């Protein structure tokens, strides 16, 4: 019996060694992931199409081997100016593109002798080019086939984060009335819009730095009435929408500035109701908030 078990144990140990020595993820972070803003978050009058990572003067590497297809050096007269600062665009295979913005490229990019960037190569250094006050790199990932920006968190290895999202300032709103939750007052029946500030806090900086979340749901008496997940951003009839979960545009999901979200309209019937909001960040940390109130 012992002699039969030995090869199986050896194969298992070899397998463990193989897994341990290789990353299970095909893609890698361009720099250490100290996240400052996340995909599809609000706050700037439009969806964020990528993520911003805090990094000062760090070497920026491609998420995967790719071929240079576009580059911009800040100040180039041949181009329109980009608030993205100096950036490079790599193509991975035939469908995926990644963009690395706010780089410090020097003038080397003008020569463009280098066209293929293996995974371990350095694209440039994270800098302060373009519209950024905190040095770092913005990463955008685009699927050419599906014509949509993809949430980089869906491709990249998970990051360490234990803090749960924050749900605050929840309100029931209709034309001229606002009921903040929780409430002890009796709410009138009818259609109410639910709004709330929903955000996650960045651990990259010691100050209060809100970021978006990955998923938000609204339940009324246990039934899901609203759900959005920030997977991709796709253009439909000239409007960018969150896909595939909700198809909501920026104006349908967020108030103009900040992190106040529109969580849909609910029809409140008389009785004691349970309204629950659930938020999940990009790592998987969840926060649930339950409100119980009477409707007449």
């Amino acid at each position, binding site marked *: 019996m012992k002699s039969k078990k030995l090869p199986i144990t050896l194969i298992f140990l070899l397998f463990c060694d193989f897994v341990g020595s290789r990353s299970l993820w095909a893609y890698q972070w361009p720099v250490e992931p100290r996240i400052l803003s996340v995909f599809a978050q609000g706050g*700037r009058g439009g969806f964020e199409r990528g993520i911003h990572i805090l990094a000062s003067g760090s070497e920026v590497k491609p998420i995967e081997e790719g071929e240079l297809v576009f580059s911009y050096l800040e100040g180039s007269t041949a181009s329109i100016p980009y*608030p993205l600062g100096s950036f490079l665009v790599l193509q991975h295979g035939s469908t995926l593109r990644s963009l690395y913005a706010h780089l410090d490229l020097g003038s080397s990019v003008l020569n463009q002798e280098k066209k293929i960037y293996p995974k371990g190569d350095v694209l440039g250094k994270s800098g302060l080019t373009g*519209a950024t006050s905190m040095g770092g790199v913005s990463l955008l990932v*685009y699927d050419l086939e599906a014509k949509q920006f993809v949430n980089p968190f869906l491709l990249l290895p998970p990051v360490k984060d234990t803090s749960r999202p924050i749900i605050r300032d929840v309100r029931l709103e209709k034309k001229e009335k606002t009921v903040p939750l929780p409430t002890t007052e009796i709410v009138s029946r009818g259609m109410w819009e639910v709004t709330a500030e929903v955000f996650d806090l960045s651990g990259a900086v010691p100050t209060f730095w809100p970021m978006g979340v990955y998923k938000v749901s609204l339940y009324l008496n246990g039934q899901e009435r609203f759900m959005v997940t920030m997977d991709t951003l*796709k*253009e439909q009839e000239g*409007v960018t929408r969150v896909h595939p979960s909700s198809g909501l545009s920026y104006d349908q999901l967020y108030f103009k500035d900040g992190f106040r979200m529109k969580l849909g309209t609910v029809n409140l019937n008389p009785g004691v109701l349970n309204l629950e909001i659930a938020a999940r960040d990009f790592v998987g940390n969840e926060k649930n908030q339950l409100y119980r109130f009477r409707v007449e």
Partner: protein
Amino acid sequence: MNDKPHRYGFLLYSLILIGYIGLFPLPLGKELLLDLQWICSIDAPVSITENQGTQLAKEKSIGFVLGKTLGYISDAGDLVYKESVLHAAVVTDRGFINYSAIPEVLVVKDSRGNILSTLKTEGYPFMRKDRLFIVSADGCGVAEVTLEGEVRWKKDFNQLITSMDAGTTVTAVGLWDGTLLLLGPTGEVITQEKLTQGPYSVIYLSALTKDDRMLGVVFGLKPQRGILWEKTPTGYKRVRSFQLSSDFRRPMQGILDANTGMFIIEDSEGISLIGRGEKETVRIALKERIGAIAASPIDGLFLFCTQQDEGYKIRGITYEGRKVFIKSLPTREPFWFQGVEGAYFVGFNKRILKYRVVLG
């Protein structure tokens, strides 16, 4: 009887002589040259008094950005206004926007520094043929605005804009998936076309003539290709498709000249002049990198500056590809070059120089 051969002989000699003069004309002793009109030092104090300012703002002056200074110079070559550039600046004859890296609010001022309007945006402004645009913070949207602060139209493409140009009423937008859009005066899509070249579909250059008559683009890789369209009563029709030797993976320098219909573009080996006809291609070999290009309908030339380690050169070339003149400017300082209605403005070493092309 013997007169006839003499008469034919005379005719033959006359024809040979006319042909010879036509083919090998005698030099007149004159050639086209760049003639210096004036030099203006941008370190000099502004040469007007405060109460002259409002009047001067209405007078024609040339705006410039040279390094970290922007300003205006009168027709006579006097510095009439200057200020330090924050992050970058857009300067036109009618006014300018001097903006910081994170703008939030763009302030539009006239050529004397009087505030004309303000625009709330996180994008960066740029001009194309006297039309003002603002590209969004992530480069995926654009808006046309007026100097008075009115938003004419706004578009979001959910894709990176990789090239853009404007005519009088239409706007050409090239996207990173190879989509070319032609937008009308209110931003409406007039026509849309997907240009693919191998697996790499990026539009590196879009150019429109000032009169909207012609549209040209360069796109794709391996090889890089170009297309010329011409406006017809039923829309824009392709008139020529061509291949380039270049392999640029960045925005390219190029203009489409309204007078000649020539598409003048930088090439990997120099510069290419692409006409409407299949055989209308002139390639000019150059070792230096191409900087700005300026067409000159008055002189029948186009001028462009090139850059190499020793400095800059301004070259005048005919549309047939004949090199007319080269002017070397041995400087590695910030450089500025612009052609306006037959006059050429060059800035380097904290000076602005005005040239005209003359027969001398």
